């Protein structure tokens, strides 16, 4: 089924590989200095949209007569506030904007998934750009940038709340008490490191797999005229389902961030 569709077009494997490769530009001899232009571009594009709406709506807030945009953002902000209120102990000036930004930015970056898979790359081809991955969250650099930022905040708040000694104690005496210190160190380290990895990989995996399925569905129509109808039906169905997935993934990322930061704020050294 995924056979070569003709001498002029690329094979299915080539097509998929082409679509899933970042447009990476190496500065100098590569290594660290690799910049994924497409990822940066589209994440900045979505960040720009976000900043535009945040700025224009934040500037013209009206408590009596909220406009449509303000209503939408109010709903989102109150939703995030409610999540934080339910989970987070005490108050923290960072966690609110952090959670809101994660939710909206990840949602917008995920939403690039819903743009037809070939549309932007084809336009890119026309102006001479050969590789383009339009969904920034299908790039590990993006998801881990978010996850590691959150991880840094987790460590920061752990030390701030528990104190440096308290943080070390957490590694020594959790979860099995003081008689199994070596085991505790291993367990807690794995537990802590799993947080950013699970955050980053979950988002990446979901979005990457979603994009891959879009590509496979797109191949149906490319294979023959017969595949056109299934492509439309399946593509629509998957896109509709994906609306749920992108929202859910953005929400999960936000929620886990709040949960991890809430755990970092729990000073349970007095309990032991």
């Amino acid at each position, binding site marked *: 089924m995924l056979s070569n569709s003709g001498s002029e077009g690329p094979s299915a494997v080539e097509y998929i590989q082409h679509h899933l490769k970042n447009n990476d530009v190496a500065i100098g001899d590569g290594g660290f200095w*690799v910049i994924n232009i497409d990822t940066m571009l589209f994440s900045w594009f979505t960040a720009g949209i976000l*900043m535009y709406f*945040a700025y224009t709506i*934040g500037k013209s807030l009206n408590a009596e007569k909220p406009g449509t945009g303000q209503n939408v953002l109010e709903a989102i902000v109150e939703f995030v506030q409610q999540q934080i209120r339910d989970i987070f102990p005490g108050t923290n000036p960072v966690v609110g904007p952090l959670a809101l*930004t994660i939710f909206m930015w990840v949602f917008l970056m995920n939403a690039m998934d819903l743009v037809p898979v070939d549309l932007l790359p084809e336009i890119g081809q026309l102006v001479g750009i050969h590789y383009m991955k339009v969904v920034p969250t299908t790039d590990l*650099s993006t998801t881990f940038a978010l996850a590691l930022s959150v991880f840094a905040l987790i460590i920061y708040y752990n030390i701030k709340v528990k104190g440096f000694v308290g943080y070390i104690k957490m590694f020594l005496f959790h979860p099995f008490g003081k008689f199994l210190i070596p085991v505790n160190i291993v367990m807690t380290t794995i537990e802590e490191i799993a947080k950013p990895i699970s955050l980053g990989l979950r988002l990446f995996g979901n979005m990457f797999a979603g994009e891959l399925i879009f590509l496979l569905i797109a191949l149906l129509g490319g294979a023959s005229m017969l595949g056109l109808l299934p492509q439309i039906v399946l593509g629509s169905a998957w896109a509709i389902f994906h609306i749920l997935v992108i929202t859910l993934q953005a929400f999960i990322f936000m929620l886990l961030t709040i949960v991890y930061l809430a755990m970092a704020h729990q000073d349970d050294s007095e309990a032991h």
Partner: protein
Amino acid sequence: MSITATLIGQMLTFAVLVWFINKTLWGPMTKMLADRKEKIADGLAMAERAQHEHELAQKDAVKHIKEAKAEAAKIIAQAQKRSLEIIEDAKVDAKEEGERLIKSAEATIELEKEQAKEELRHKVVDISIAAASRIIKKEVDADTHGAILKDVVGQI
């Protein structure tokens, strides 16, 4: 996955974005939401207070109306009592006046009766004298027959 400039770039982008969203959206909007919540709570409290005051005023009004009604009833009762008194007084006065009138009328009648009697007596005396003198053809001397005349007059 390797650590690349893209990762660092995305982290910086993220940091800037969080800062920007906090500055332009989260900060002002949470403040606005809190203000609005407070305003709504104030408004509701005020409405409740107004309702309470309204109830109190209503109760007060009912009380006033009741008092006024009681006062009015009292005044009417007093007036009725007073009118009865006046009527009683008037009755008593009328009775007295009537009795007085009757008495004076009786007195007048008595007086007139006495006068008539007196007149009649004199007339009878005159007639008797005339008759007697005609009978005895002789003038009856009042001095000599005084005793007889007195006796006659006394019998009339």
